[in-house]
């Protein structure tokens, strides 16, 4: 079988380990050259200055280029193969956005440049706000949060300030489902709230009865993603919002799973008051090996004056910065990850109404199809129609053959696919969470399911230890405990002994 998403042809098979840039260093080599100093040299004295040269590697430019290019060859990427990673929305990142983001006045503008000289940049944010608020059903937005977790914290600080200004300081509890991303409770705690967990029912949705029990006069709000982390649409979402609103709390939408519903329905219509979006998921900006992301926060009008400032407004065709009256402050030194926001606007402009109207539908179609064919190999966690992602579980295989989700993920790596998200959500045993996104072909989805079948067969029959998987990659299964016990976190051979987890 052939598929565009199978990377098994990659020469990832490494022989030796790549040396570090320090090991390539020899005194006197250098890559950098600068123009000669063109001003008269003077004696400058200051007690903070030193003439001792800094400690850095000394390498030739060709050595440097070869080293980092070889390291590039030791890395999987969206441009190389399929990431069926649940909750991460690893879709194709249009190359065209790279071009726009590198246009000089966008890439090279200093963040302190007055708005008079950066009308283009402000208009980008203004236009993106229009797209984002229409897609989410909200009224206005800030682009300061540089990632989803920062967006969550922004939303929670807005809730806190709103409650303070309405003399409702006693409301100090944030309700979070037990299936939520770890950032939700971590953000709630950072904002100074107490975290109250609400359980999930047998169908995989928020347990409404438990929610009603947990809601009381101290409820400040609820954080929820819809579809939830099981990939299921919370059918009672309108009722859930009402339960929180009736008690005077606010409802926060974690946009991690927004890809499922773009053009289908909108958080704003479901009763959410605050929404963050992950531009690096839903709007196709590259993940960068772990960032930069962008987590803009959109709110309904009654919360506009609490947004971190400044935000962009338009007056008589001139774009201006506006400082919201009761702003929570700032979440970033300047305007957030502007170039990431720009890439997201490029993506939205390329898709336009036609593409965005159908975005969620195709994301769900691919996931529903994949869930249908994968379910013939691995049982699904919930017997409900999935949205953009679904959760399967190998708990039976663990009982019968000691095959863990971890083993399945590692074996997939060997065969040209990234592992699905494993052991998440925490409430599903031996969970494998798949999210194909809308940009993979049906061939790639078929190939993944067929590969899973082969792997499970092989793992069931193998005489050898699963520890041997993966077998075809530059390195084998790492011992993840060594560095925690004998911490080697820099090349100075520094060891932090006797750390116990």
């Amino acid at each position, binding site marked *: 079988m052939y598929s565009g998403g199978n990377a098994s042809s990659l020469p990832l098979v*490494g022989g030796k380990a790549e040396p570090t840039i320090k090991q390539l260093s020899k005194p006197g080599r*250098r890559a950098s050259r600068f123009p000669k100093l063109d001003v008269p040299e003077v004696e*400058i004295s200051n007690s903070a200055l030193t003439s001792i040269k800094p400690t850095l590697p000394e390498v030739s430019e060709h050595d440097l280029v070869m080293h980092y290019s070889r390291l590039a060859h030791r890395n999987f990427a969206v*441009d190389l193969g399929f*990431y069926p990673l649940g909750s991460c929305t690893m879709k194709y990142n249009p190359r065209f956005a790279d071009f726009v983001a590198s246009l000089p006045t*966008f890439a090279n503008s200093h963040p302190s440049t007055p708005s008079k000289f950066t009308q*283009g940049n402000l208009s980008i944010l203004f236009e993106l706000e229009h797209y984002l608020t229409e897609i989410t059903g909200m009224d206005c937005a800030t682009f300061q949060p540089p990632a989803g977790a920062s967006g969550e914290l922004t939303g929670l600080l807005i809730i806190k300030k709103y409650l303070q200004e309405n003399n409702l300081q006693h409301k100090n509890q944030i309700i979070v489902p037990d299936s939520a991303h770890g950032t939700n409770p971590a953000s709630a705690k950072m904002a100074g709230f107490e975290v109250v967990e609400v359980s999930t029912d047998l169908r995989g949705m928020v347990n409404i009865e438990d929610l009603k029990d947990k809601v009381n006069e101290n409820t400040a709000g609820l954080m929820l993603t819809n579809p939830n982390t099981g990939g299921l649409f919370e059918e009672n979402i309108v009722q859930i919002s009402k339960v929180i609103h009736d008690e005077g709390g606010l409802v926060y939408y974690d946009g991690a799973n927004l890809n499922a519903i773009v053009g289908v329905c909108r958080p704003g219509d479901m009763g959410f008051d605050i929404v963050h979006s992950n531009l690096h998921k839903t709007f196709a900006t590259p993940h960068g090996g772990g960032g930069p992301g962008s987590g803009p926060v959109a709110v309904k009008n009654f919360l506009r004056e609490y947004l971190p400032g400044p935000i962009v407004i338009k007056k008589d065709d001139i774009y201006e910065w506006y400082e919201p009256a009761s702003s929570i402050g700032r979440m970033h030194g300047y305007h957030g990850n502007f170039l990431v926001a720009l890439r997201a606007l490029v993506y939205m402009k390329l898709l336009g109404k036609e593409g965005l109207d*159908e975005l969620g539908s195709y994301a769900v179609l691919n996931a529903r199809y994949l869930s249908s064919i994968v379910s013939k190999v691995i049982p699904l966690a919930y017997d409900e129609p999935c949205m953009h992602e679904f959760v399967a579980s190998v708990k039976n295989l663990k009982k019968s053959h000691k095959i863990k989700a971890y083993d399945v993920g590692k074996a997939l790596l060997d065969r040209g696919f990234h592992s699905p998200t494993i052991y998440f959500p925490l409430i599903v045993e031996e969970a494998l969470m798949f999210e194909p996104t809308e940009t993979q072909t049906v061939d790639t989805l078929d190939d993944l399911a067929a590969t899973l079948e082969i792997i499970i067969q092989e793992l069931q029959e193998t005489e050898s230890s699963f520890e041997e998987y993966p077998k075809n990659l530059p390195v084998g299964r790492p011992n993840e405990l060594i560095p925690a016990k004998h911490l080697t976190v820099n090349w100075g051979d*520094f060891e*932090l002994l006797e750390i116990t987890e």
Partner: protein
Amino acid sequence: MFVPHSEIDLKKMFEELSIETLDDLFKHLPESLKLNNGLDLEPSLSELEAISYFESKEALNTQNLICFAGGGHYDVYLPHTVKTLTMRPEFMTSYTPYQAEISQGILQILFEYQSLICDLTDMQLANASLYDGATAVAEAISVAINKTKRDEIIMSSGFNPNTKTVVNTLIDQQKFPVHYISLDENYLFPENYEFTEKQAAFVISLPHYEGTAQDLTNLVSKAKEKGLVSICYIDPSMLGILKTPGSMGFDIVVAEGQSMGSSLSFGGPTVGWFATRKDFARLVPGRIIGESRDSKNNKTYVMTLRAREQDIRREKASSNICTNQTLNAVGSTIHLSWLGPQGLQEIGYQAIQKAAYMKSQLIEHGFTISNNTNSLREFLIQTKNDSSQIIEKMGARGFLAGIKYSEKEILTAVTEKRTKIEIDSFIQNLLEVDNV
């Protein structure tokens, strides 16, 4: 757009799912929530049309302003080698390296990044990046609060006002008041400042926001005597000529890393550096990469000390950070390796020499520098007219003159990129726009 399915593909998928239309996928959704007419947005653009759309947006920006602004973000030369290597798709389009076996590239670069930062700052443990310099200061203060279990913060007022606002937003002022200590008449932190045992952290910038710098060894040692955690915010592009924060005794070093590997980018994405001493390991926010061994005893890099992180520890995590600024950290790594010791020293040295020339010329032409004596690459020019107006007028003449500091002062920065011709022309133009 980017949906790959042909009619044949769709037929196959619809058959598998026993559906006839895409709408059939959503039968279980409440009717009242469905968008029946879709979104109210403009039609899609082809790539060709999008080029003119975005070029028209670009044209709204003033082109080619010669940058004399700093305040944390500096117009340091970013080599093409660094840009193109950083933007390799294997780095740019990869996911967080949880699967070590297929992520050795990113993991090794982040290990090199952590090591380079430790070497440069004289620290022992760096994390794999934070959002930016401002949020890194706030994260460092949280670490100090957790380490000391004290609740007062002593922070120098010599910080970018935006950084102070970020700190005031992220640190709960009701529980952990931040006291800003003004710089003295020489624009230096008062050497006679006395710390107390109630204080958790001493936070200071090297150089100060105003551009002045001082050896901080004595202050840090006084803070240490009272049990404070000392936090140094540095300008990475000056690390080639400044004493290391580690040698001055600091416990935590943070930085706005833009000048090392990222373009100015209107402020983002850049990268926040964070480095500390080993005894702070458990309190460090964000990801840390460590060196381990694989099942065949080969050297293998992995994410480590994971039990601090939000996906495992949830509300007990050391920070809520998940997605960070990895690609910008890759940029820092490659840029630092490209510069080498001579290169990093040279950009610092040229910057302060050119700044010294600019200050002397400004003074010769009748301007006053508020902090001539102790300033290095950045300094305060006193204007005769309103500083905002001067910045606007200079902008119309092709110069970003700096950042407004007060009604009659501009904070101006010089990097190694500025030439004598640009500096002379700046002064000539300033003379013309700032007359009485």
